[in-house]
């Protein structure tokens, strides 16, 4: 367990150090997030700014994740970690946490942009922040595992993708169903709603199953 945390922190520290030093992804996100927020605002409309926020965050997260994992692979970083004498689930878990941090940054930029151009946005901030966090955890687990697997798996490994697919749709539906509840319910009712509780359960499931699936599929 001590080794788990040691390697986990080592990989996270390395990723943050590289990211802050290179700054390419941060600049990319600083440009992409407001641009897509504006495009979504103009073309989809401002009837439901909270839904618009999550939709924009999802699209930016998809593009950012692809970019981050590509960079790791093009520099041979994936080979370093996959050949490391440690459990691959640690590698996957640390990548998920790193992408949660990136996702929080994306959410922050999209929030600022939409707040500037939209009125009466996000009335209940605690509910909104809770949903933001749960959404970030789930989407980071799915996207990080997917992109890591896509780069490494060939042949029969594709079967593993099919195991993750059934988990994505309920996660997105539960997130979508939780959005109207942010403004509808006060704190306690929001937390006891079925959608939110099921979303928490799915987050825990994804955080558990994604590293295991990744580890199993790469080394089998």
């Amino acid at each position, binding site marked *: 367990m001590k*080794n788990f945390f040691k390697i986990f922190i080592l990989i996270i520290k390395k990723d943050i150090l590289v990211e802050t030093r290179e700054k390419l992804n941060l600049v990319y996100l600083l440009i992409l997030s407001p641009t897509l927020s504006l495009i979504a605002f103009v073309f989809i409309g401002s009837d439901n700014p909270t839904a618009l926020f999550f939709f924009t965050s999802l699209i930016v997260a998809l593009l950012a994740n692809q970019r981050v994992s590509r960079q790791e692979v093009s*520099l*041979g970083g994936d080979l370093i970690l996959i050949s*490391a*004498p440690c459990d691959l689930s640690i590698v996957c878990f640390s990548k998920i946490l790193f992408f949660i941090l990136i996702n929080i940054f994306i959410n922050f930029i999209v929030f600022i942009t939409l707040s500037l151009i939209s009125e009466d946005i996000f009335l209940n901030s605690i509910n909104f922040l809770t949903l933001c966090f749960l959404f970030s955890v789930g989407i980071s687990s799915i996207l990080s595992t997917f992109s890591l697997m896509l780069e490494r798996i060939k042949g029969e490994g594709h079967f593993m993708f099919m195991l993750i697919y059934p988990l994505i749709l309920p996660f997105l539906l539960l997130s979508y169903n939780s959005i109207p509840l942010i403004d509808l319910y006060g704190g306690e009712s929001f937390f006891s709603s079925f959608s939110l509780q099921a979303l928490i359960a799915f987050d825990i499931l994804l955080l558990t199953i994604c590293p295991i699936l990744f580890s199993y599929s790469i080394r089998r």
Partner: protein
Amino acid sequence: MKESLVIKHLGKSFNEVSIFSNISFNLSPGSVVSLEGINGSGKTTLMKIIGSQILDYSGEVLLGNKNIKDYGSDLFSNIYYLSPFPNLYQYLTLNENISFFSNLNDIQNIQSTNSLISSFNLDKYALKKVHELSDGTKKKISILISFLVSPDFFLLDEPYTYLDSHSIKILNNLIEQSSKKGKSFLIADNSSGILNFTGSVGL
């Protein structure tokens, strides 16, 4: 007593085109074996299979009577594949890269780390980011890391590429010293005639 690495009837094909087939040989403790073959003959592929980078192949690779597919991540402490292209984090400094790999592989011996850095004349690059360094220096760092990990079996894929004559001498010395301690080497390099091999495998 250290175990041998046994390669039995190894074969690999891409899109139903055979790259090589029925390759069998032993890598016993202390041996330095040359892997020979023309470009495209599958030297890198063979090394990647032995180094567990490629898992889809025919035949088997045994380490101490146990198939390498049955090992967990601890296999990578015993077998180390050195890629022809240095796999380093470009935006970390030399010191940060070495520290990362040392921690990842749980290497405690700081003294041997420092002596390896000095022997390759890398002291002056300690605080430089890897992307600012020449290809030869990057190669030296990769080699240095492989010797820090100190596995029982080294799979060196074109280790001499980019190296100057001085660095080649240092590398050959390291190989000779390590083989005396029971470490085994499989080396694929068309320009490695300077080293005294204990055997060779042709593809």
